[in-house]
Structures are given as C-alpha cells and as structure tokens.
C-alpha cells in the first residue's frame, strides 16, 4: 500500500492554475522526485500536502487517512515533515534551538508543568536533546550548534532546515530544492544523506529538485510537471528521455549539469 496518495489535486489562484489535476502516489521507503520548469507548481504541491493552501479540488491521503480536511499543524503530528524552498528558519534562535523546536510534536507536558519544570519535563528535555544530537551528528552540524541562524551561510541554513525536519522523526519528509545554492561537494553530501534517510532511518522522501545529477542519483521514481499538469512519470531515465520534458525543462544538454 502506498504511503501518500495524491488524487486529482488542483488549486487556482485567481486566473492562475498553479496545480491542475495532479495525481501520484509514493510508496513507503521510496525516494520520489518532482521536477518541472519554474512555476510549474511543484512548491504548490508541497504547500497543498502540508495544508498551507486549500485545494480547489482533489484529495490527499496519507497512511490510509484522508488529510485534505486537516489543519496545517495536524500534519506534523501524523509524521510529515518538510523544508522550504526559501528557507524558513527561526532566525533569532540558535541551531540547537531550531532543531529542538522540531521536536514539538513529541512533547507530552503542558505549560504548567513546563513553568514548574517538573522532573518529567527535564526527562523529556534530555530525550529531545539526545535525538537532536543524533541529527547534529548525522548532518555534521557540530560546529554550528550554538550559532545564531541569522549569521550562517546559505548552505548551512539549508542543512539546518533538513535537520529540523529530521528532528521531528517523520515517516515522510518533503524536501523543496534541498541542493539549490549548494556546491557540487555539498550536493554530494545531500545525496548521501538522502540515501541514509531512506536506508537507515526508513524514511520516505518526496523531493523537488532542479539538479538532475542529484535526482538521478537518489530517486526511484520521478514525476515531471509543467503548467500545473503532469507531464511524465517513471524512472529518472524514462522521464528524462521524454521529449516534452526535454523541451520544457532540460534543454539540449541533458545531464551536462552534473
């Protein structure tokens, strides 16, 4: 059974049909990539899944449950974490604090207990911290642990964002252009991380990416969209070979950007 089922999804902003009848499903443990020209509606699909936008039509099912009617903050509870294309970190907090905020869904204390800082709160704090340190180690963020986000280079912020999503301990992780703004070397790290996420952590990954080398390297299946409509779906090779995809998206030099 598939983990995520998107069926005939559509959203319109005024006259702009940002997403217009997209369907796909992601299997557990899969790395699924969405590609397409700028403005094709990729980020909008993410925003629909994380319930920031209200779909005009269509349904989204996760783990057998219809999540189309849920609120944005309920989505994380189900085990869906995401990153943002333009980086939406908590700028005035440290990396550590940002990652700890990712643990919000795992807190079981209420605010009165928090104010009194009962032993239970401390126990949970230790546990959160433990989990977060694992993420820090995994993403090699040790050097930045106590740095404020506001002063970090672009690339590190991208990584912190991935870390925050991982700290949530999700089943499905949505990555919006994880490699944009990263050098080849760093993109390679991202590729390894995605593989580890899937292999060691058992995560399912849904990703939007323009860097075809990364897409080729990690993804099992690829969906190409253009103008809000699906264009092609299949293995990375199949999709890249599709003439429409080449014309609308890749241009002449296929794979040259590697």
């Amino acid at each position, binding site marked *: 059974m598939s983990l995520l089922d998107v069926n005939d999804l559509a959203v319109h902003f005024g006259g702009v049909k940002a997403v217009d009848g997209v369907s796909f499903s992601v299997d557990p443990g899969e790395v699924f990539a969405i590609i397409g020209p700028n403005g094709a509606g990729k*980020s909008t699909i993410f*925003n629909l899944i994380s319930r*920031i936008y209200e779909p005009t039509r269509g349904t989204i099912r996760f783990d057998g449950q219809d999540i189309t009617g849920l609120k944005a903050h309920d989505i994380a509870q189900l085990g869906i974490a995401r990153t*943002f*294309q*333009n980086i*939406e970190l908590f700028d005035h907090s440290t990396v550590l604090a940002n990652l700890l905020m990712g643990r919000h869904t795992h807190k079981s204390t209420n605010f009165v207990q928090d104010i009194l800082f009962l032993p239970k709160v401390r126990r949970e704090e230790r546990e959160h911290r433990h989990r977060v340190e694992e993420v820090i180690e995994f993403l090699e963020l040790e050097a930045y642990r106590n740095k404020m986000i506001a002063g970090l280079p672009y690339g590190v912020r991208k990584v912190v964002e991935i870390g925050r999503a991982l700290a949530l301990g999700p089943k499905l992780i949505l990555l919006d252009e994880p490699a944009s703004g990263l050098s080849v070397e760093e993109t390679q790290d991202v590729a390894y991380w995605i593989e580890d996420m899937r292999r060691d952590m058992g995560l399912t990954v849904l990703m939007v990416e323009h860097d075809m080398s990364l897409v080729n390297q990690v993804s099992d299946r690829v969906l190409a969209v253009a103008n809000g409509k699906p264009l092609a779906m299949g293995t990375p090779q199949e999709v890249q070979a599709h003439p429409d995809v080449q014309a609308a998206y890749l241009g002449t030099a296929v794979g040259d950007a590697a």
Partner: protein
Amino acid sequence: MANGCIYGLVALGFVLIYKASEGVNFAQGDMMMLGAFVALGFGNSDQMGLPFGVAMILAMVVMFGVGYGVERVVVRRIFGQPQFALVILTIAMGFVFRFVAGSIWGYSPLVLETPFAGRNLYPGGIVVGLADLVTIGVTIALTLALWAFFAFTKIGLAAQAASQNQMAAYIVGVPVMRVNSLIWGLSGVVATVAGVLYATKGAIDPNIGLLGIKAFAAAVIGGLGSLPGALLGGLIIGVVEPIAGRYAPGELAKMSPYIIMLVVLVTRPGGLFAQIQMKKV
C-alpha cells in the same frame, strides 16, 4: 465630516511614512500640533502678524524643514532597526515636540486667527461653516495629490520600493535615506495643513497631539499602506463619532471608534484596504 477630514489628514501623515519606510511615526499628532503653532507664530497679530497666506506657506516650509531635519538627525540613525524602535523613538520625540511648543507658546490654549473663523455660508437654508468647506476641499485635494505622487512619480515608486526591501532599493540605486528625508518633510507639511485646519475649529494647546492616536486608528482601519484608506478611515471615525454621540448611550458612544476598529481588524487583520497577504513559501 470636517472632523473626519482632520483625522484623515493626520492619518495621511501616518500613511506617508508607513508607505515609505513601514515605520509608524507616533509623533505625527505632535507634528500637527507643532505645525499649528508655527502657523500661529507667523500669523497671529500679537506674534509676527504676517498675512494668513504668507504665514501658512512659511509654516509649511518650516515644518518641511522640521520633518526633514528630524529624519536627518534622529530617525536616520536607527536605519535598519526593526519598526518597533521607531515607535519608541517617536513616542519620545513627541515629548520633545510638546516641550518645545510649551516653552515657546506656553501651555494655555491659543486661537489661530484665520480668515474663515466663525464665518458661515447658507446654501439652501443649511448652515455650513466656511472652515468646514475649506477643510473638506483641502483634504480631498491633498489626498489626490499624494496619491498621484505615489502612483505616477519615480520618487513615489522608489519610496514604496524602499519600504518593501531596503537593500533591493539601494541595489537599484534609490537613495533610500534621502527619499526618507523627503517623505518626512512632506509629512511635516501635511501635518501643518491638518494642524491649521484643526485650529479653525477652536483653540490649540500643546496637548492636542493626543488626537494623533485616533487618527492612527483611522489609518489602521483604512489599512496602513493606503492613502484613500486613510481618508476613508478618518471619515468613518469622523462620521461614526458624532452619530454614536448622538444616538448611542454615553459609554458606548465613547467606545464606538474603537469598537469599529476592532471589528474591522478582526475581520480584516490588515485594515479595509489590506496589503497583508500570506507569505508565499
């Protein structure tokens, strides 16, 4: 109606500065007060005694200088700091303005001598104060002029750009700080006009700047970034106030402008002409 225009005019001052820097000048009401006093200083017979028109123009020039100078000397130094800093700064500046006016003109109410004081027109049997007509006319003219300034001039566009992204405005070559000075100067002029028109209704003293709070409410009702919104907000408050004063029970009447404001904000959190949208992520 005329009163609403005065709220609207002061609100225009708020909007001007908001449109150009997304800052809120809490001393706007006090600038209005100062403008009225400067005009009085030039115009009243026991002061310098200049003809009304000359005094008005001189007052506008002086207040342009005051606005411009305040930006140059004080506001500029907190460039790049969050909006909130400007709020606190201008609150403190309001105290200074009041002190200055109080030291020069004293704390007792004074009356500005205007050619239209106490003169009424009787078109078709109803009584219309000449001052009210002037107020309405001037307000409409000023709103239109400012609207055209922002909509059609390069500087107007640049000012809006600067409020949305200071760095990007600099990158395209907008002298952000000089534009800001100019806008502050302009808001000084608008404040003077508002102050003089206010003064036609009665007396002025250094504390009439308190009106600024209600004018600010007007600007917020309209949606802070919108000039017609400011005028509309001012008119709404100006119309609701006397109507509620007339028909609603006392306490409710006093609360009425604020209740309206709450209702507007709860339903449209960015005011009637809202320019707040959800961030695209």
